[in-house]
């Protein structure tokens, strides 16, 4: 079964980095968003299985997106991929309902492990 994936990051390179870190044997349909507002628009209008979410972004940041997802009862697993690796930040995103925290730049093996742990592979 194909999973629906949304990648939200303000950096074009970072979005590509995630795309190419996805396990090649994972059947996915990938969409991208450049900021939190764009991501929420997608999330409100269609079912997304996995959201890969950056934190430090203009417009609406990653924490804002996590809050909205919670408030609006959107069901989707959020893997935060961020350069802000402070333990306090990692704890905060998990508290806000994120499934996992991954540090930037994301590595294919780490991503695969996390997807496996959370039952996506």
């Amino acid at each position, binding site marked *: 079964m194909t999973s629906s994936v949304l990648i939200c990051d303000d*950096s074009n390179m970072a979005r590509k980095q995630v795309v190419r870190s996805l396990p090649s044997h994972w059947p996915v349909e990938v969409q991208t968003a450049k900021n939190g507002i764009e991501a929420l628009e997608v999330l409100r209008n269609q079912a997304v299985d996995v959201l890969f979410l950056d934190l430090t972004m203009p417009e609406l940041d990653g924490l804002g997106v996590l809050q909205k997802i919670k408030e609006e009862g959107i069901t989707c697993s959020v893997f935060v991929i961020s350069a802000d690796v402070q333990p306090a*930040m990692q704890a905060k995103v998990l508290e806000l309902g994120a499934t996992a925290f991954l540090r930037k730049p994301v590595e294919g093996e780490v991503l695969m492990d996390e997807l496996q742990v959370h039952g996506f592979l």
Partner: protein
Amino acid sequence: MTAFNLNEDQQDCLQELINVAMGQASDQLARYLDTFVHLRVPSIEQVSTTSLSNSLNKEQQSVAVVSQGFLGYEGIRGEALLVYQHKDSDCIGNILGYEPDELSVEEQLIDLSSILTTTFLNVFALQIDNQMSYNAPRLLSSGQDALAVYLQQLSFNCDMALKVKITYQVTDYSFNCDMILLIPESAITNIKAVIDRILADY
């Protein structure tokens, strides 16, 4: 037309390399201060060193500047300046948790700057398969035109600088510092070559 003109993809790539480096430097700062550091999207712009030293000189009464040179492979080198507002540097002892006579404000500023600069640049270098070495950090004297003189004395002739303004905002205190990377034009050309190599992979 200068070597600085980065196209959209190059700018985006550099920004992302800087984001990652900034994140790790903030993490170090947070651990060092035992607090949380709020991160903002860093700004990258090109400035002339003349306008930079003019603007810093104008505020020279209100800022303290710590400078540290760095040198990597492939002709990547420059000078990292950390600019503190005096209102911040005065309370730095409290923030760092030092007893009043333990370490001078100058030594504390140099300490903190070195942590931020080397963490930032080590992570930056790691991402581009490079490795940096550093000069000893020094606090620039705040005398008349001290900064302009210092910039002139630098071993490279640097007309333009890449100003990466990173604001490390500590939530528990009102403390901000800006990091400015001065990179000579020749080194920018080298960084561009590295960026193009990374981009070619995508």
